[in-house]
């Protein structure tokens, strides 16, 4: 009965309750959308980095990991690939020859990482093949000798165009400097400008021919997973099988990438708390007005035998209901908006130049995890409970004799 009284009580002053509920609703929509945008963009940022370059797990010769010297390579890369692809949770595996070198054009020279890839197999691991815009060439199609993919960023720097020639210099297997002329067949562009600037892609076969590495070697084996939650289990499984290789997750390979995500999560938590705190104070204020307005009624209830626990509970329930109604509408509306923009995307291209140079996509697909709603619901109820304490204490402190005096 207390529950039904509390529920009916909040609709007594429809305007006032409506204002509070609207405030909670709007506050939460603002909060949830902001969280969704931040979370979506940082999630996208990580996803892009993993899809375009890093993959979930990379395997190297332990010494290669230290300073990328090409003399430290993985032998028997083919059989290793086969074994790795059998591990549960592994979606795809691909090996690369990876050599540090220089890219020289008539205009300039820059240090780069040359990725010698098997073009078809690489498609199962990275999305570079999808990052060549129309009119910017193609992904190793109908080409004869030494094709190379470079990023638009690098093309700009070296003043190169499609079908331009550029000279790569690097060490061959053994240490002597060597080089080769490559023809630009495709100019790609990912959201990660920093990695774009330093990576070029050539065919593994071409690189082997120029360096003398054997077909069955690799500097890097990239592993993609079916489920990101399997990260640690797959890693330890690989270590068990190859204790002599260096196995690193993307979090270890790109600690700043992982840190940004964690930092973002914490910021968002603090942000939501501040919103809830502000709403909480609004609710306290409203409930104090409610108690003040109902002094006589509360006094009467105490007089006829409603004890303090029940009075306290009644005020607390009313407060919780107010926050739940506002919170429920706020979350439902936010979920709807997030669902829409999560599919369509939000275009921030007016500020995208800045974003993209940090590796953030210009089109953001806002989203929040389902668990976020659960935690938020809990926090909303908690806000209601905390906001009710002071008004409820005021209510139970009323002296029924004073409260029922009709002349007072």
């Amino acid at each position: 009965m207390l529950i039904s009284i509390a529920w009916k009580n909040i609709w007594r002053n429809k305007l006032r309750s409506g204002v509070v509920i609207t405030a909670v609703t709007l506050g939460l929509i603002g909060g949830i959308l902001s969280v969704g945008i931040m979370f979506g963009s940082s999630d996208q940022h990580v996803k892009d980095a993993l899809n375009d370059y890093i993959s979930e797990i990379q395997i190297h010769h332990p010494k290669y990991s230290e300073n990328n010297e090409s003399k430290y390579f993985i032998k028997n890369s083919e059989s290793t690939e086969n074994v790795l692809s059998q591990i549960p949770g592994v979606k795809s595996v691909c090996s690369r020859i990876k050599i540090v070198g220089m890219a020289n054009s008539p205009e300039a020279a820059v240090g780069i990482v040359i990725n010698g890839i098997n073009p078809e197999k690489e498609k199962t691991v990275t999305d570079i093949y999808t990052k060549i815009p129309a009119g910017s060439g193609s992904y190793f199609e109908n080409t004869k000798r030494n094709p190379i993919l470079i990023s638009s960023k690098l093309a700009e720097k070296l003043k190169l165009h499609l079908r331009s020639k550029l000279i790569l210099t690097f060490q061959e297997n053994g240490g002597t400097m060597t080089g080769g002329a490559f023809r630009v067949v495709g100019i790609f562009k990912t959201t990660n400008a920093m990695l774009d600037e330093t990576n070029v892609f050539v065919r593994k076969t071409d690189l082997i021919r120029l360096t003398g590495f054997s077909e069955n070697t690799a500097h890097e084996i990239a592993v993609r997973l079916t489920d990101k939650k399997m990260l640690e289990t797959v890693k330890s499984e690989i270590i068990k099988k190859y204790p002599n290789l260096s196995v690193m997750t993307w979090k270890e390979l790109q600690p700043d990438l992982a840190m940004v995500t964690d930092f973002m999560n914490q910021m968002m938590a603090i942000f939501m708390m501040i919103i809830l705190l502000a709403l909480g104070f609004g609710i306290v204020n409203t409930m104090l007005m409610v108690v003040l307005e109902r002094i006589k009624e509360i006094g009467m209830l105490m007089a006829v035998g409603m004890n303090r626990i029940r009075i306290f509970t009644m005020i607390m329930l009313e407060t919780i209901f107010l926050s739940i109604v506002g919170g429920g509408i706020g979350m439902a509306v936010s979920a709807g908006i997030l669902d829409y923009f999560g599919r369509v995307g939000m275009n921030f291209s007016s500020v995208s130049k800045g974003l993209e140079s940090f590796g953030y996509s210009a089109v953001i697909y806002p989203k929040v995890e389902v668990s976020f709603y659960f935690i938020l619901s809990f926090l909303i109820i908690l806000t209601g409970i905390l906001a009710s304490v002071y008004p409820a204490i005021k209510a139970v402190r009323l002296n029924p004799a004073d409260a029922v005096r009709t002349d007072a």
Partner: protein
Amino acid sequence: MNIIEVKNLHKIYKESEIEVHAVRGIDLIFEQGEFTAIVGPSGSGKTTFLNMIGGLDKPTEGEIVIDGVNINELKGSKLIDFRLRKIGFVFQAYNLIPVLTAKENVEFIMSLQKRPKKERIERAETLLKAVGLGDRLNARPSKLSGGQQQRVAVARALASKPMFILADEPTANLDSESTRNLLEIMENLNKMENITFIFSTHDARVVKKARRVITFDDGKVISDVKNKY
């Protein structure tokens, strides 16, 4: 049977510097089945007295024994629980919970007593019929007249099966028709069910119906006339 024994009751209100000696030494005994009016000029201490014997306010001095229990010694929730079990209240106004219907208001007090739902509903309907509101069971207080609201309050007070019912000026806000109607109901309940009523009033027509009239003046009892018919 004595149900309330009041000994040497005093109440002094202290508001900053000023002290108001509202009740100045009252000794009274109330018995089961009384139909008693407390009268006296405004400010003579009627409300103060009723609040103290109802356990709503603490005396400054003196003793109130109800059903063998000295209620001054009851604290906090014990006192509230005592009121719930032993005393029915009818106030001048603000008696009902506005968001509940007449029936729910009567039921409510029984739900505080943790009575079973079936009993609550049956008793609420019976009592509301007894006060002539059988056809307004599902009306909210705002849809009832002042007199009807007071009758719901009487039904509510009865619902908890108290030892006695205290009513501070129950008819003060009513027109003469409603006053007569309410008094009739109270009188009938007193006669048929032997329900004890103690009420204060300024209304001479109400006083006429009482079988005991206690007159207060300046915080003291100046006359106590019993068995008046």
